[in-house]
């Protein structure tokens, strides 16, 4: 009896060894292509054309990672993505994709429907960054000839990440876009990418934003305007403010480096009247003085602070005015702010928020505080004795 039991137990173990070892559907690294970035275009025929930049790992002594482009067409995003297998022969692995570039045509038709698959699929990741291409097609961005050995998508990802000390393009990923586009009646922004000629070669440049209103591309802002947009949205992490001061008849340009900025947006309600107060407080340092004038001493410094504040206020107001007039899209998130702070008022105006936004009175105050003048104690262009 014992013997039978022992035999059976051994049998059981053997069976387990055969049936339960290894993986049911394993995936080897060489059996799929790792996608670094995707560009989405739409063809005349109405089909989506996906171009994936795929990491190619070269063999040999010094392994080099380069990239190649794979294109797939399909009726939907997912369809196109899967159709790529017929070209590459390998299943694409999406989890490492850094950027998703939309062409302008696609963005004009609607962004949400493009992003749905990307957000829904468990393999793709929600922190993929979205970009809108200013070039004719999105594919062109990947098509520019090699200038570095890096993979372009990863380079683009790096540009966006480091652009926070420039504040000319916000970082928008899939989840952020989804959250923003669902909060109230707010319009959202996506950074834009363009091509630029520099020293005989073409490079990609990320600057400015595209305004997405009601899920469709409505217009674009340039880098400078984006900076003031970031001021309003309290997303400033760095950047430069340039001021022009007249000193004894000649203009002096001063660059102020932003070290920190705090913006407080608060709705003020009086009866039926809604107003928005925007208080910007920025800490800067004098980073560059190209010209005459003493801005280090108390008197000049206070004047410079006042001037910088006034200029900032004026530019912010100009941007708000432009957005109101041209687009009527609440890209600043005022609606969301109102909802957070005064939910009752929001509920009463939310149905026609776009009209309310157009006639919204916005009071901007801006104060600039200079904390140092970097390494120099004085203006070198001014002689010390004077």
């Amino acid at each position, binding site marked *: 009896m014992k013997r039978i039991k022992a035999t*059976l137990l051994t049998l*059981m173990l053997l*069976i387990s060894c055969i*049936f339960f070892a290894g993986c049911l559907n394993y995936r080897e690294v060489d059996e799929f292509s790792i996608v670094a970035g995707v560009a989405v275009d739409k063809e005349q025929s109405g089909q989506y054309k996906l171009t994936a930049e795929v990491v190619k790992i070269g063999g040999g002594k010094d392994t080099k990672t380069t990239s190649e482009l794979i294109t797939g067409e399909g009726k939907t995003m997912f369809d196109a993505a899967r159709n790529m297998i017929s070209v590459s022969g390998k299943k694409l692995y999406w989890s490492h994709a850094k950027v998703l570039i939309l062409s302008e045509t696609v963005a004009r038709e609607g962004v949400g429907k493009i992003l749905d698959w990307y957000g829904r699929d468990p393999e793709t990741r929600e922190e993929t960054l979205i970009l809108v291409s200013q070039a004719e097609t999105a594919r062109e961005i990947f098509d520019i000839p090699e200038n570095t050995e890096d993979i372009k998508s990863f380079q683009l990802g790096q540009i966006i990440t480091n652009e926070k000390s420039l504040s000319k393009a916000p970082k928008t990923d899939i989840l952020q876009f989804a959250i923003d586009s669902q909060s109230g009646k707010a319009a959202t922004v996506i950074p834009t990418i363009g091509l630029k000629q520099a020293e005989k070669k073409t490079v990609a440049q990320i600057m400015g934003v595209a305004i997405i209103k009601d899920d469709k591309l409505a217009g674009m802002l340039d880098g400078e305007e984006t900076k003031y947009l970031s001021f309003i949205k309290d997303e400033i992490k760095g950047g430069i403010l340039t001021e022009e001061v007249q000193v004894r008849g000649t203009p002096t340009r001063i660059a102020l480096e932003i070290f920190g900025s705090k913006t407080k947006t608060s709705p003020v309600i009086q009866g039926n009247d809604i107003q928005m107060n925007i208080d910007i407080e920025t800490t800067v340092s004098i980073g560059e003085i190209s010209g005459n004038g003493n801005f280090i001493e108390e008197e000049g410094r206070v004047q410079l602070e006042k001037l910088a504040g006034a200029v900032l206020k004026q530019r912010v107001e100009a941007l708000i005015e432009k957005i109101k007039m041209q687009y009527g899209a609440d890209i600043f998130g005022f609606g969301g702010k109102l909802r957070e702070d005064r939910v009752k008022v929001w509920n009463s105006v939310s149905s026609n928020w776009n009209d309310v936004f157009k006639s919204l009175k916005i009071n901007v105050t801006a104060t600039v505080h200079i904390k140092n003048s970097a390494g120099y104690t004085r203006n070198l262009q001014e002689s010390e004795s004077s």
Partner: protein
Amino acid sequence: MVTEMLALTVLLYFLLFIFDIKPLYKKKLWADFWVNVTLTGISFTVAVLLCLKVKIPSPELPICELITSIFGK
């Protein structure tokens, strides 16, 4: 695929029979034995049906329908 699944199921239940049910018989725990045999019978039937890809209606559906009809979705 179906045959392999079936074979595996039968084998597993055979092992269960030897290691789980037989000792009860030996120990003459009749109540335990019969309950176990009944349960094994039920589970074996369900397992075989699943192997044959027969669609078994979920026993939860009537409860689900009853409650949604009373309280709404």
